[in-house]
């Protein structure tokens, strides 16, 4: 199924779509208020964008600088070319310490790499500790949003899951009670697991430290209790200087949820005494993307999710309709880089309204890249013959005024060629919309009669 078909399924329950849309739009409004409170907001975006441009243009040296500083700090650095290598590295680190159970805080990269499934196949248990991620893990679903993993789930559904897995009272759906149950359940896991994996929000070249941001405190609970801390990081997460955090931390959470900052912004510079700290730098298509001038600046993304919250299509189709670890507008420009054919539907799942581009804290031209991916996809993966034919017919008529007028006379040109103008139930336009009524004359005919 493609995005459009999955979105159609999602829309079968209109009340649920309204709820999903309104919840996310509420977060978009909170983001607006938080941004409006910072008069220099647009300059901050400009600075963040320029810093990230600089990072991409000097990534080679920044990575080397980060690596040597991190090594000096006592952090073990690993390099993974792709998802498989990343997963293998995690597995070998665990194996070396004889660890069969790991806890994990939010890392979209490990979703991208399919780490959980990989480790489970090798008899290693992984527990996600971000509440939203834990919920989707129990439901055996992928997250539907990078910041709000279970934004698609209602509290009653979560209550049922918790009753089944955590033994809460049947019918209990109070978020307070459910959160308390998860806290207690996961605390036992935090205390007993010897390995913890976290994501990385920023890695500072100058100091060799990395920063992890959470509201729940789960990354810290995991990392500070475990003997082995593994941090997985996409290679684009580098920033040159520590002082740049002063810009990114001002933007990140305001853009994401409208909070002024996450509850915890933790700076890991050295391992705890007696602890192993590993950091895996993952490529998985990123270095190739860096070589595509039209698309490289999607690597500036800091994963705030603002483009999802604002996207009128995402809000009404749900994250799962994108069938990629990262959904929404940013996912739609990242996914084709990994597999253009498999994700060919995503750049078309947009009206190109441009809202995403203008909420983006690092000014990624998301909607322009969606347009450009469409051109790439049509040229390189081919399109259904019927669509190509209609486009070619349209081209011929629109390049030739006489043909255009002839077509217009025989029943209004567009009624013939536009994809939405066949007046029957096979026409998707007509299912829920009336056709435009063809007027008596075209403007051109009127003009010739009245003005010439």
């Amino acid at each position, binding site marked *: 199924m493609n995005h459009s078909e999955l979105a159609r399924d999602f829309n079968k329950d209109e009340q649920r779509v309204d709820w999903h849309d309104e919840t996310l739009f509420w977060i978009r409004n909170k983001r607006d208020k938080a941004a409006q409170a910072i008069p220099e907001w647009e300059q901050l975006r400009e600075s963040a964008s*320029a810093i990230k441009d600089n990072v*991409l243009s000097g990534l080679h040296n920044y990575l080397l600088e980060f690596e040597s500083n991190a090594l000096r700090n006592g952090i073990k650095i690993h390099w993974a070319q792709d998802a498989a290598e990343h997963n293998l590295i995690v597995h070998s680190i665990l194996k070396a310490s004889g660890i069969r159970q790991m806890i994990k805080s939010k890392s979209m990269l490990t979703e991208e790499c399919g780490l959980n499934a990989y480790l489970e196949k090798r008899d290693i248990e992984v527990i996600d500790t971000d509440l939203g991620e834990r919920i989707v893990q129990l439901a055996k679903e992928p997250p539907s949003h990078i910041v709000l993993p279970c934004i698609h789930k209602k*509290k009653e559904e979560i209550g049922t899951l918790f009753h089944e897995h955590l033994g809460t009272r049947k019918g209990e759906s109070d978020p307070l009670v459910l959160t308390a149950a998860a806290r207690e359940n996961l605390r036992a896991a935090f205390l007993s697991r010897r390995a913890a994996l976290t994501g990385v929000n920023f890695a500072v070249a100058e100091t060799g430290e990395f920063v992890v941001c959470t509201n729940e405190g789960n990354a810290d*609970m995991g990392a500070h209790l475990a003997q082995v801390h593994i941090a997985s990081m996409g290679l684009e997460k580098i920033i040159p200087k520590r*002082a740049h955090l002063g810009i990114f931390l*001002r933007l990140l959470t305001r853009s994401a*949820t409208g909070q*002024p900052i996450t509850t*915890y912004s933790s700076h890991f510079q050295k391992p705890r005494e007696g602890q192993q700290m590993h950091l895996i730098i993952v490529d998985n298509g990123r270095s190739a993307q860096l070589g595509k001038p039209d698309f490289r600046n999607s690597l500036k993304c800091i994963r705030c999710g603002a483009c999802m919250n604002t996207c009128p299509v995402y809000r009404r189709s749900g994250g799962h309709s994108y069938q990629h670890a990262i959904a929404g507008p940013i996912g739609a420009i990242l996914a084709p880089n990994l597999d253009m054919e498999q994700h060919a539907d995503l750049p078309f799942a947009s009206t190109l309204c441009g809202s995403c581009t203008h909420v983006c804290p690092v000014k990624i031209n998301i909607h322009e890249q969606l347009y450009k991916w469409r051109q790439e996809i049509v040229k390189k993966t081919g399109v259904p013959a019927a669509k190509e034919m209609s486009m070619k017919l349209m081209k011929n008529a629109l390049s030739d005024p006489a043909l255009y007028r002839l077509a217009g006379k025989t029943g209004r040109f567009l009624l013939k060629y536009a994809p939405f103008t066949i007046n029957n139930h096979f026409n998707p336009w007509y299912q829920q919309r009336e056709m435009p009524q063809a007027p008596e004359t075209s403007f051109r005919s009127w003009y010739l009669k009245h003005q010439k």
Partner: protein
Amino acid sequence: MKSREKILSRILEHQPESTALPFSPEIQGNETGSLQIFTEVLTKIGGHVYQPGNLNIMKDQIRGLFPGKSRKITTLSLFSDLADTGWTIQSPSELKDVEVAIIGAHFGVAENGALWITEDQMKQRVVPFICQHLVLLLEKKEILSDMKQAYSRIGDSTYGFGTFISGPSKTADIEQSLVLGAHGPKSLHVFLLD
């Protein structure tokens, strides 16, 4: 070629022409942030802010907040009459039953209510996260206005581990209903002293 070299050589081949770094971290003046904004912001995100006037009043307030006999630890000898100062552990999980932890913070940030704390103030990194309730002590004059100032204050210091804490641990993952006390402390109390 190893993965590292392959990745680095692909990057070198693909990275665009160098662009300038726009922002040079100039040293800020000692401009102080607004106590009022700091208090408002931190209160709004679920923290409690106190200005006890002196140390004894503060101790009374803490006793009032946590009257029980549950385990209280501190890294500040100032509070040896309130909480355990002599604690030592083999493994951080031994701190699982800590009810209250009292520690110091370097400075606070008015724009977001965050407090900067480093490993030397925690003794064990897990302390400010594993306790049920966290009490932070801050000198009133140590409030900066924003994150840019915060990082010029941090400068190039070495800390092993450092964190900004802004409010109690929280989640809104269930239908966006805000719940305080996700995995870390259920409450945060910040005492401002002269």
